[in-house]
């Protein structure tokens, strides 16, 4: 495996003279570039079109979310986490709420757990849809983007009906839910499931056996399971490399252990496998939602939590399986109403480290495919 230590820093002082006499050509991709999914800046070292190495420059979207947390109460900070990974805001909220609940030693009531699972899995589907559309767009297929956005709309409608917001939902509260589900929530979700199942087939019809898609994704951005573990890569990227690691199964949170679902894994760890893994994950999410909607119990939606939260002195780490990988919250409490320190382990940020390893020896066009397949959200990378 490529040892990350051997990466030499880039020499940006000496300008490249020509295309021919320079062994390396340094090209700056981004921060304003259509394919870097926001404001990622990638400095590419090229030999012709071959990538010798690259360096990511991040921080263009840094808002100091972790620092803000130190000046907010636990409840006040809850909306902020939605702004990190804004395409999977519900997952972020779940992770934060569960972490604080762990700190407070309370547990959300079963009904709340079920609703949380439904919304989180819906959000996972939405996040994967957005990934699929933009990833395909990067590789040059325009149409899937519109298909996925059409169907993502249905999910966002459910979110909107439930909590009034479409993107940054702020759906959960510490200790459970603020809102009881609206009338017809279950019907809406069921309708969505019947609506969505054939749509996945539609996406797959467009891409899975498309020759050009195969050529563009097979063998591109290969990363081994060992490399993934060494770099801390999680989520679909890790699973596509053949490592069966999903926190929903490995360290079950919420009430995931009640549900029957499979963890898809890939073999080669290339872009195509990652694509397939995510497609299967969408189907599996549908299965989870189906079971959750069928088994949703009656009861309270909020556990007993104090009005003013003063968790005991101590620290807690809680991680969940966000759509992009392991999303962890490490909270240190000094016994006051405000956290002493919150550290977020964002999956996008950690996964982005693998970009260099995955791109070496590939072509420039593959860098775009790999950025797409890593499924990063710059709001989460920079926080």
């Amino acid at each position, binding site marked *: 495996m490529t040892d990350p230590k051997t990466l030499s820093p880039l020499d940006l002082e000496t300008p490249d003279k020509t*295309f021919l006499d320079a062994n390396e050509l340094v090209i700056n991709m981004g921060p304003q570039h259509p394919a870097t999914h926001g404001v990622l800046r990638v400095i590419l070292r090229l030999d012709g079109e071959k990538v010798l190495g690259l360096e990511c420059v991040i921080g263009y979207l840094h808002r100091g979310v972790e620092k803000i947390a130190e000046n907010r109460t636990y409840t006040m900070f809850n909306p902020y986490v939605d702004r990190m990974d804004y395409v999977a805001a519900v997952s972020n909220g779940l992770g934060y709420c569960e972490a604080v609940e762990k700190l407070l030693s309370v547990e959300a009531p079963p009904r709340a757990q079920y609703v949380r699972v439904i919304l989180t899995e819906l959000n996972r589907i939405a996040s994967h849809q957005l990934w699929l559309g933009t990833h395909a767009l990067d590789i040059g297929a325009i149409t899937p983007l519109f298909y996925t956005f059409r169907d993502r709309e249905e999910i966002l409608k459910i979110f909107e009906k439930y909590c009034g917001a479409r993107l940054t939902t702020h759906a959960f509260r510490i200790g459970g839910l603020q809102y009881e589900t609206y009338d017809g929530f279950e019907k809406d979700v069921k309708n969505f499931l019947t609506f969505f199942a054939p749509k996945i087939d539609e996406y797959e019809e467009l891409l899975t056996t498309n020759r050009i898609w195969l050529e563009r994704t097979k063998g591109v951005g290969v990363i081994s399971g060992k490399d993934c573990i060494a770099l801390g890569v999680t989520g679909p990227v890790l699973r596509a490399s053949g490592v069966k690691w999903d926190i929903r199964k490995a360290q079950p949170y919420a009430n995931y252990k009640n549900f029957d679902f499979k963890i898809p894994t890939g073999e080669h760890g290339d872009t195509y496998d990652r694509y397939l893994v995510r497609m299967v994950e969408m189907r599996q999410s549908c299965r989870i939602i189906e079971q959750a909607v069928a088994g949703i119990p009656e009861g309270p939606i909020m556990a007993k939590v104090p009005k003013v939260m003063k968790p005991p002195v101590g620290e807690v780490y809680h991680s969940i399986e966000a759509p992009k990988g392991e999303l962890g919250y490490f909270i240190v409490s000094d016994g006051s109403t405000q956290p002493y320190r919150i550290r977020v382990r964002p999956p996008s940020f950690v996964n982005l480290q693998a970009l260099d390893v995955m791109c070496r020896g590939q072509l420039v066009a593959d860098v775009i495919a790999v950025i797409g397949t890593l499924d990063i959200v710059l709001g989460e990378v920079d926080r």
Partner: protein
Amino acid sequence: MNPVATPFFFYLLAGIMIIGGILVITRKNAVHSALALITTLLAQAAIYLMLYAPFVAGVQIILYAGGIMVLFLFVIMLINIERTQKERQFNKQWLVGIAAAAALGGLFIAVYTKGKTLFPEGRVSYEEVQNTQGVATLLFDRHAGVYMFAFEIASLLLLVAIIGAVVMAKKRI
């Protein structure tokens, strides 16, 4: 079909060619030179058409303007132009240059003055023949194809050129 306004087109095209030729050898920037050369070549293709040689004109456009000159432009863009532009453009072979120019100028004048007697103008005015077919007959015909062997040799030449170019332009020599 009778040609229309032959003198006008001839002088127009000849003017373009001469000006293009002058630009080719005087421009500092090689890209400009190449573009002037392309103009010259296209004008020459038109002159071939005036000479009832449409096939040669077509080959001229496809091969010269569309192929060789693209190669030239490609190479010029690969190598560094900025620096070569600041350098001295002409070498110091003025004497040789002037001598050669004088000798060739003499030839030029000789062609112009003696040409009348050397080439008594036999004005030909027959219908446009199947020019392409005629060329093909000379190249490929079983009986009249006197150039068939030369044609095969030309293909060999091209093969050698391809290999040579690939070897030369490889990464390291």
